[in-house]
């Protein structure tokens, strides 16, 4: 299943016509794995997913099976939330699943719901994805009409309803507790932790599994090929392939499905066709805009799995690889990045609300040539004052890249600062 442009496990039906259509999808085996899973005990499904090494593809990389196991006994009702609020700059993989194989996602979510005995699934799609939203809504309606969703699914006696909700254009609603608040009809302010896991206290205070689209879409494949085989597509600590969103200065940007742990060079040069116009690689942002930037040297032998990228000083995150070549100005990149986070800060807690705007102001000042010598140290210190001091991870998401841009490309900033 590995071709010149990747492994085709999850994405094998993407290019085939009519996959979003239930009748066509059924001919290609859609919902077969749901039937198989319904014949298993719920705990067995969780055990298989745990054994498969499937980790969350939303950014945190938390073991999916373990998360499902956190659901407290005897607390009902339970819910499954599908996080389709894909908003991290550089990330565009979930959109393909929503558009090209929505039934795979619904099937995966249903298997998850069976495993945790949830009675309702909420799909939360970002507001900007109005086209995918229409496709998914149609897919849900089709599946409901055919008895895959709703009362007494496939005669198993188990019922599960699927609802679709859309965001209104806020990055923070992709944070799992922000998503839950938004689903509850409130402002998408992330919840205070602890309690840490929505699996224990989630939607309307009930146990809730929040998983990313890609994570859930892998689940039918795990049932299909078995945990062991699935594990072999990745590393021992992270089973299965990953959808890499490749963007930036490459000849063939796009989404590539590759085994987790693939060398970065394979992704950039084999799949992406190398850097545009044969220019030199300057740096790579390996896991979405909130990850630390890595210099060309640091990328030399980098393998794209959670542990290796973390060891290199960054994170795999949502596996959105942004390739930066020589002419790109890092101070300009920083302004772009801080502008995004300053705009997306929800404003609930102080360091992020006040800090992101301050970072943007300083970064802009430096880029415009009005910077002062101390601004660089101020930037670093302010990022330090945000980092880890906030309610949700958005604080780190702005602090980490900021600190890495300044430390790794200080000279570029200094060149802009005139005495």
């Amino acid at each position, binding site marked *: 299943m590995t071709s010149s442009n990747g492994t085709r496990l999850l994405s094998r039906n993407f290019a085939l016509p009519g996959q979003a259509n239930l009748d066509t999808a059924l001919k290609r085996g859609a919902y077969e794995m749901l039937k198989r899973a319904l014949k298993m005990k719920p705990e067995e499904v969780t055990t298989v997913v745990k054994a498969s090494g499937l980790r969350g593809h939303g950014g945190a990389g938390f073991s999916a099976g373990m998360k499902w196991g956190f659901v407290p006994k005897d607390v009902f009702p339970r819910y499954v939330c599908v996080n389709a609020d894909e908003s991290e700059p550089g990330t565009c993989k979930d959109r393909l699943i929503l558009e090209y194989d929505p039934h795979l996602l619904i099937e995966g979510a249903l298997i998850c719901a069976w495993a945790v005995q949830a009675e309702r699934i909420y799909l939360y799609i970002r507001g900007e994805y109005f086209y995918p939203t229409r496709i998914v809504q149609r897919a849900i309606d089709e599946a409901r009409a055919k008895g895959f969703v709703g009362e007494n699914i496939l005669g198993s006696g188990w019922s599960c309803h699927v609802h679709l909700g859309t965001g209104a254009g806020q990055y923070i609603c992709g944070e799992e507790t922000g998503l839950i608040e938004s689903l509850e009809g409130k402002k998408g302010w992330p919840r205070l932790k602890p309690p840490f896991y929505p699996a224990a206290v989630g939607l309307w205070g009930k146990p809730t599994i929040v998983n990313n689209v890609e994570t859930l879409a892998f689940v039918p494949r795990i049932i299909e090929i078995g945990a062991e085989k699935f594990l072999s597509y990745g590393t021992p600590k992270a089973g299965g392939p990953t959808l890499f969103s490749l963007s930036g200065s490459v000849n063939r940007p796009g989404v590539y499905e590759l085994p987790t742990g693939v060398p970065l060079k394979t992704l950039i040069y084999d799949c992406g066709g190398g850097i545009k116009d044969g220019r030199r690689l300057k740096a790579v942002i390996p896991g979405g805009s909130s990850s630390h930037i890595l210099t060309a040297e640091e990328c030399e032998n980098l393998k794209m799995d959670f542990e290796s990228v973390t060891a290199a000083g960054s994170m795999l995150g949502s596996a959105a690889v942004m390739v930066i070549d020589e002419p790109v100005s890092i101070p300009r990149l920083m302004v772009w990045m801080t502008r995004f986070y300053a705009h997306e800060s929800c404003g609930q807690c*102080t360091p992020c*609300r*006040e800090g992101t705007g301050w970072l943007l102001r300083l970064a802009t000042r430096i880029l415009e040539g009005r910077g002062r010598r101390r601004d660089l140290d101020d930037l670093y210190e302010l990022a330090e*004052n945000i980092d880890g001091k906030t309610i949700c991870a958005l604080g780190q998401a702005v602090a980490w890249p900021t600190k890495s841009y300044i430390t790794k490309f200080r000279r570029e900033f200094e060149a802009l600062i005139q005495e």
Partner: protein
Amino acid sequence: MPHLEIDGKPVEVPAGTNLIEAAKRLNIEIPHYCYHPGLAVVGSCRMCQVEVELNGRKSIVVGCNTAAADGMKVFNSTEAIHRIRSGVLEFYLQHHPLDCPICDDAGECDLQNYYLLHGLHDSRVELAEKRHKHKVHDVGPTVVLDSERCVLCSRCVRFCREIAGVDELGIFEHGGDSELLNVPDKLLENDYAGNVVDLCPVGALTDKDFRFKRRVWYLKRTPSVCTGCSRGCSIYMDWETSRSYKNPQRRIQRLKPRYNRDVNEWWICDRGRYSYHAVDAGNRLTAPRTKSEGESATTVDAVLDRAASKIKAALSKHGPKSVAVIASAASSNEDLFLLKRLFADELKVHSLDVTLSGEPKGKEDEILMKADLTANRRGAVEIAVQPWGGGGVAGDDILAGALDGDYEVLIVVQHDLTRILSQKERNRLGQNCEYILYLGTHENGMCHLADDVIPIAMWAEREATGTNFQGRVQRTWRPFEPRGEVLCEWRVWQELGKRLGHALPAESVADVFDSIGAAIASFKGLTWEGIPPTGIMLTGVSEPPYRKVQSSRPLPAY
């Protein structure tokens, strides 16, 4: 009961107590803006971060959302914590306006206080960079908002939703544009609106009533009890008399709620909050008045002499049936006790009551406000200031009888009968009653109807006890003397008793209260010295169940 250590000091707290409350027990302050013990925990201000060590694992947590655990070590004053707080404070002050010299909250502002403790950094922001938001924005009839000063702690928003049960304030927009404002088309006009000013840790929400009146460091604070209704909320009177050139008529500057778990928690209603205006209102009575002999001015002594001789004459001519007293449930326990002693026990007057059906009633709700606008009806019942013996006559019948000429002497305390009676009835009362003595606090129709008027002190001007509707005895303290020739009511009865040959020995309020303790069953065992600041239940009356009005979730275990 977890045992923990905060900055090396051991403390034991009930399970579920958070670290801020645990530290309070050791008089250690963990700084915070958004946390309030009466409101849900949101953990958004990030000031209360502390270092916690449990089972060898160290981590930095917010004190408000962390439950004390057995064996926990909390570090509140390490270098790392100081740096974190200093960083958070700098974020707060980034866009904060330089308003301190004209800000009403200066002197009791948590931004100022914590800056001195944890900040003391130089500003890295240029004045031109400061963001501008709404200033002098009316959020309601009593409260003004300055958005630039707001730290977005959301206490006021949570108060409105969780305690007052209304949706009047909210935080709108997001990120750096976040701003506290009215919910569209709504004003902050619930009956508890003033509490948001107390809750505001900075000068963002200010009370129109107090704005620009006094710098807070000039204020003196005396604990007291609100007399606006029969609940008797614990309050503080903030008063100042030395700068009389500023506003000579105003001694009390504001009332603030005083925490009392069993009566009012942290809150008071606006009806009570602004009730202090009556104390120094222009129509306060400060001198006795008389209709007799064309006197333009008189003295309290002269009035008392005349009242005593009128009573004596009536009693000797027609007996105790010719005297009636309409007392007031707004009077203190001591007033009522001496009144009862003199008229019921000594003079055997049967027509004695505190209740008239025409008395004004107020709004009542589920939170604090009671419909009964008198502070001490329960006390009147306990002391039995009511018709007694065979010929006892109740309030309404006393009034009816007085109109028919049944009484020669009618003594009225506080009740403005002219609001109950028609003009025709007023004239009849004046003609049919030989002598009317009125004891009151303010100029009203009674001052013209009565033959003699004695001005009496209000609660703010004297020490006294009251019994609230629950049966809780609470005392007040006296910050300043009454003005003019104003007397405490119990002194009036004592002086009158002296003139009628019935000594009611008492040197002070404390003496009177202690005699109540000795004489009245439900006060048995209570002494003046023994009344705690939050009051004490009557003997044999069980504590009302502790009713927490808030809707807050339990803290997750650490």
